[in-house]
């Protein structure tokens, strides 16, 4: 753990060397998600509500999703650019070192410029928490905490899965984007608005709805079921198959030789 923080410190220092570029990139990240927010905002200024959800309620959904995504993207970035590690042969260097591979991939790349996106999600949450009219009792606060934790677990698993697949394809698989970037994009709205089929898919296949939709229903008093509070924690179960797949890929791994 101490070693991890040392790595974090090192990466932070090295990224701070190009301050102007760092600030511009972070600002750009902020703008990207800010325009996404404006898109939602303009839709609501025209339609006022969707499936009975008001803007302030949707923003909770949106900010939790974005926050979980940006934190994960920042710290699990190593898996996001994993195909590059394979292509460049740098993975071979990692494998011969006497440390856990997961640890080394994690510390190979941390992208602090994602702080721009994080800032956007914090602002939205700060606005939505009072505006949504939710009475913030202890269980509601815990629900949001669990939603964030579950979200990070699911996104981290997806990145690991993505890395696992790239053992076989060498190149990054564009299709995975629909699950990572796609969930961020479409998770702006509660997944139920896309219809029954989509909701089922994102419940049983890719468990995004477990932390995004069901606990959200409890938050805004659409459901009384206490069990929904703990549902996001199932996201940690999703880590197991993804991790196993990664190990499986690692065992089959042949170096590209470059």
């Amino acid at each position, binding site marked *: 753990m101490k070693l991890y923080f040392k790595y974090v410190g090192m990466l932070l220092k090295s990224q701070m060397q190009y301050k102007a570029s760092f600030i511009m990139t972070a*600002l750009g990240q902020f703008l990207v998600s800010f325009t996404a927010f404006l898109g939602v905002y303009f839709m609501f200024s025209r339609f006022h509500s969707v499936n009975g959800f008001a803007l302030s309620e949707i923003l909770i959904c949106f900010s939790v999703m974005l926050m979980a995504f940006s934190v994960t993207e920042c710290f699990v970035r190593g898996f996001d650019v994993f195909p590059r590690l394979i292509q460049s042969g740098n993975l071979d260097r990692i494998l011969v070192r006497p440390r856990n591979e997961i640890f080394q991939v994690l510390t190979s790349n941390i992208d602090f410029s994602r702080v721009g996106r994080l800032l956007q999600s914090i602002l939205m949450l700060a606005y939505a928490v009072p505006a949504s009219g939710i009475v913030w009792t202890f269980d509601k606060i815990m629900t949001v905490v669990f939603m964030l934790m579950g979200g990070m677990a699911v996104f981290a698993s997806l990145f690991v899965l993505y890395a696992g697949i790239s053992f076989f394809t060498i190149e990054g698989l564009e299709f995975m984007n*629909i699950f990572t970037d796609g969930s961020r994009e479409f998770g702006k709205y509660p997944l139920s608005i896309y219809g029954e089929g989509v909701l089922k898919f994102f419940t049983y296949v890719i468990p995004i709805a477990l932390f995004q939709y069901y606990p959200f229903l409890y938050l805004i008093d659409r459901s009384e079921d206490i069990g929904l509070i703990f549902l996001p924690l199932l996201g940690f179960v999703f880590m197991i198959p993804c991790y196993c797949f990664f190990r499986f890929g690692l065992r089959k791994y042949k170096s590209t030789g470059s």
Partner: protein
Amino acid sequence: MKKYLSFFKIRLIAGLQYRAAAWAGIATQFAWGGMTILMFWAFYHNGENSFPMTFPELSSYIWMQQSFLAMFMTWFYDNEIFENITSGNIAYELCRPCDIYAIWFTKNMAVRLSRMMLRCLPILLVAAFLPAPFNITLPSDWLSGVLFLVSVILGFLVLISFSMLIYISAFYTISPMGIRILATSVTEFFAGAIIPIPFFPEALQPIMYALPFASMQNAPFLIYTGHISGIDALQSIALQIFWFAALLAVGRLLMKRALRKVVVQGG
């Protein structure tokens, strides 16, 4: 002219080799388009009356957007060009008896076109057979079809001449990543890639239509769907010509100034 044509051909053929990547791309874009339409469908159910387009128009718009994504994607920049500038390899390119602006322009066109050619047809074909109102339909008359073709080429040229400005900015900043992401997000938003321009608040729309970004994908797709027709369509095509000429002139001017001052730092 001939040498630029061969640059174009080399890039185009190279781009056409990535077929497996194209299939993955098609699947992704199809899912993406489908989700977007479902999202709008939910809003449509909530307030049919405040929907600024008809639903078939919107479906056509989204599917056009997905099939021509490679042509109009705002986040795509040729890393080779940036690397050439930051690494100093540009010195070699300057030695060649060609116009760098024209080379970069044709390279960009070729890469985008090759990707579009591989992806466009399968998406359009499947989208055409989806149940109404989620499918893509042909333009209502042949005239809008012709206007669309003119407009889509112009939009393409406007987009590339805009992205040339971003490439040129690398001469001045050395680290172009920041500007690139800023430009991407602004373009994406004002071009109507996040939500189509008719969905913006009425007060903002006149400004948005006048900006060069609306002359990229917005104009051809709205003409295709029939949302803009007749004299309005001609007007937006005229605006596209104007923006293309303006961006081209500015780009060439900046390029000339940058090259006069370019300092290759050894190595």
